[in-house]
């Protein structure tokens, strides 16, 4: 299970809507508790591709975020990005570029009126939806 605060979900949605039609992206960090991941902080990073169908996290901002996680005792848990006009599921490129099988890959779809966020475990060309709980 992976837990996300509702306020962090809203932060992701607001940023992704602002960036659309460009893909938005960022990192997630928090705690590992048993087999669960508890997201304590969502980082918003620049998509240096500035593209509608691709994203690459800005390495400088990634470095800053990693240091912030360490300073705050947070564990890196994965990343998130938006699909402005496609479903909330990993594309072939998402799977090909998912190098860390311990990470969670969160994908927010804005293709419908209601945003849809899912979290995935990706290993090789296989992806599996994780149980995502969004709570107050």
């Amino acid at each position, binding site marked *: 299970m992976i837990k996300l605060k509702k306020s962090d979900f809203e932060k992701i949605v607001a940023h992704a809507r602002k960036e659309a039609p460009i893909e938005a992206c960022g990192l997630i960090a928090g705690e590992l508790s048993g087999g669960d991941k508890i997201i304590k902080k969502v980082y918003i990073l620049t998509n240096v591709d500035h593209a509608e169908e691709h994203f*690459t996290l800005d390495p400088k901002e990634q470095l800053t975020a990693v240091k912030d996680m360490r300073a705050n005792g947070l564990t890196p848990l994965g990343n998130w990005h938006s699909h*402005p006009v496609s479903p909330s599921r990993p*594309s072939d490129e998402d799977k090909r570029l*998912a190098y860390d099988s311990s990470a969670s890959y969160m994908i927010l779809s804005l293709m419908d009126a209601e945003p849809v966020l899912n979290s995935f475990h990706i290993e090789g060309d296989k992806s599996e939806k994780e149980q995502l709980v969004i709570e107050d």
Partner: protein
Amino acid sequence: MNITVAGEKKEVKDGLTVAELIVNENVEMPDYVTVSVNDEFVEAGTFADTALKEGDSVEFLYFMGGGSR
């Protein structure tokens, strides 16, 4: 000499290169790793020529990206 790797202090041999450190640290998939030394990114392809110095702080960052197609 003493350096810091991902926030952890380590003692390594003098003149250790970034490429050697990648091997020492068992960094997986090094082709997809960006390396910074003292917050400056090391150009890909120069890892073997980049010698570390006493007190350097090294970070390894995995490329993170994707696409919706």
